[in-house]
């Protein structure tokens, strides 16, 4: 099999010339950090940070058959979406595991699915396989657009001066189509992956550097800094957002992952429905939060033990910059999942005491 060389986002040159430490991630060359992960993490919790998320897949649909087609391959009820609304959904396989977790946007023109970078090569064939003569157009817009996330309590203050629509009307999980900088057609959505308020901009690839520079300029007075995938991961971790390949995988069912709310078994027929029905009755394991006593980090794959007996495995672990503790998410047997349960994690041969704690680890303060 030919090994494809990694893709570059329209902002690649900017990252390289501004100290971005580039790594390969999901088939793309992406900045993992510019300063330090902790500094970038803090900027997002306290002020605002700017992320290039152009590696994520953007797949657009239009035509009368688009909705039914999306419903057939996803677990949530896309038909419930109002125009300009966004829904978190899952793309299951026929065994009740997951091909990806996605966002479904309903725009005035149709639908857009935003998927994970590394899963786009699996998502697109799954869509094609279940097209079933749908009267709809489908275009993969990933390479001719860019996606920029502005995350943090000051995100709206940074974006609003550049955007010709009122962001006050764009509530959580809503979008608006308009223009930035007077002439750049842009979709602005309010979703985010950090636990903070945040906005994402989808712009034409050729305008990406211009918009990125304008956001940095607009955010200068607010202390904005560019942030990489490293901080994106510690931020999403504290907010307990699942990450594909960690909390989600083709052999992890959504009920075990704590995402049963995104599966609507009664919406009609869809891929994997019968397998998912069985998993709802017995998910087999439960996603939990763990707080370790020491500073050692429980990384993915570390065994979780109870009295020396294996009861699960860590899916993600890190030192949480906001909470200043070694934390982990794990899939454990349901009997060991109750908050307060004392467990151990085998961290490279060291048995580290840990306690089950509620998720998310971090929740942003209520807006005042």
């Amino acid at each position, binding site marked *: 099999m030919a090994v494809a060389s990694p893709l570059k986002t329209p902002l690649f040159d900017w990252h390289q010339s501004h100290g971005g430490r580039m790594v390969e991630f999901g088939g793309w060359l992406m900045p*993992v*950090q510019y300063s*330090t*992960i*902790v500094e970038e993490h803090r900027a997002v919790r306290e002020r605002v940070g700017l992320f290039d998320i152009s590696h994520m897949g953007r797949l657009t649909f239009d035509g009368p058959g688009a909705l039914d087609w999306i419903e057939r391959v996803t677990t949530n009820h896309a038909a419930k979406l109002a125009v300009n609304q966004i829904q978190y959904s899952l793309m299951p396989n026929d065994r009740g595991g997951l091909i990806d977790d996605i966002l479904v946007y309903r725009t005035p023109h149709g639908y857009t699915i935003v998927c994970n970078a590394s899963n786009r090569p699996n998502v697109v064939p799954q869509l094609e396989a279940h097209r079933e003569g749908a009267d709809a157009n489908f275009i993969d817009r990933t390479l001719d657009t860019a996606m920029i996330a502005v995350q943090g309590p000051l995100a709206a203050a940074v974006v609003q001066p550049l955007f010709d629509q009122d962001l006050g009307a764009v509530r959580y999980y809503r979008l608006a189509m308009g223009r930035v900088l007077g002439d750049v057609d842009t979709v602005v959505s309010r979703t985010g992956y950090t636990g903070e308020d945040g906005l994402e901009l989808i712009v034409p690839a050729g305008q990406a550097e211009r918009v990125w520079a304008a956001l940095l300029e607009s955010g200068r007075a607010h202390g904005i800094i560019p942030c990489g995938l*490293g901080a994106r991961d*510690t931020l999403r971790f504290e907010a307990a957002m699942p990450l594909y390949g960690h909390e989600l995988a083709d052999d992890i069912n959504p009920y075990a992952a704590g995402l049963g709310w995104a599966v609507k078994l009664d919406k009609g027929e869809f891929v994997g429905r019968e397998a998912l029905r069985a998993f709802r009755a017995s998910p087999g394991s439960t996603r939990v939060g763990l707080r370790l006593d*020491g*500073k*050692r*980090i429980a*990384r993915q794959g570390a065994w979780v033990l109870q009295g020396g007996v294996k009861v699960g495995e860590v899916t993600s672990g*890190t*030192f949480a*910059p906001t909470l200043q503790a*070694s934390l982990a998410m794990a899939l454990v047997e349901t009997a060991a999942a109750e908050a307060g349960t004392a467990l151990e994690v085998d961290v*490279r041969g060291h048995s580290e005491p840990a306690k089950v704690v509620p998720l998310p680890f971090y929740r942003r303060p209520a807006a005042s």
Partner: protein
Amino acid sequence: MDPSTLLYLPSHEWVHLDGKIATIGISKFAVDQLTDLLMIDLPEVGKALTAGKGFGEIESVKSVSELYAPVSGKVTEVNSAVVDDLQVLSEDPFGKGWLIKVEVDDPSATSDLLDRAAYEKKVAEEEH
């Protein structure tokens, strides 16, 4: 320590030899790559090290990295200032941030180590 007079492993440990006593640390490049250091595990005094084998580990937000012994010998001293506060290592990896001292079995057994020029060449390759 003067970085230009030290010997290095490709895995970024440095060693300074003074007779039979070797002082061991990790390079500024390694510290910069790791960033956000969390904790370090170092051996106890008296522990025997084997050149090329692991003698401890250092954990950062991003990853955990094994520390490799540049020389064989017995640990005579551990820098508790670094264990207590990794800031010392971040700020001065070639000085106050040294990690351990070792009484070396054979001070002439350094042929696998890189001089500064060879190490810098290796680092430059790694950055690409």
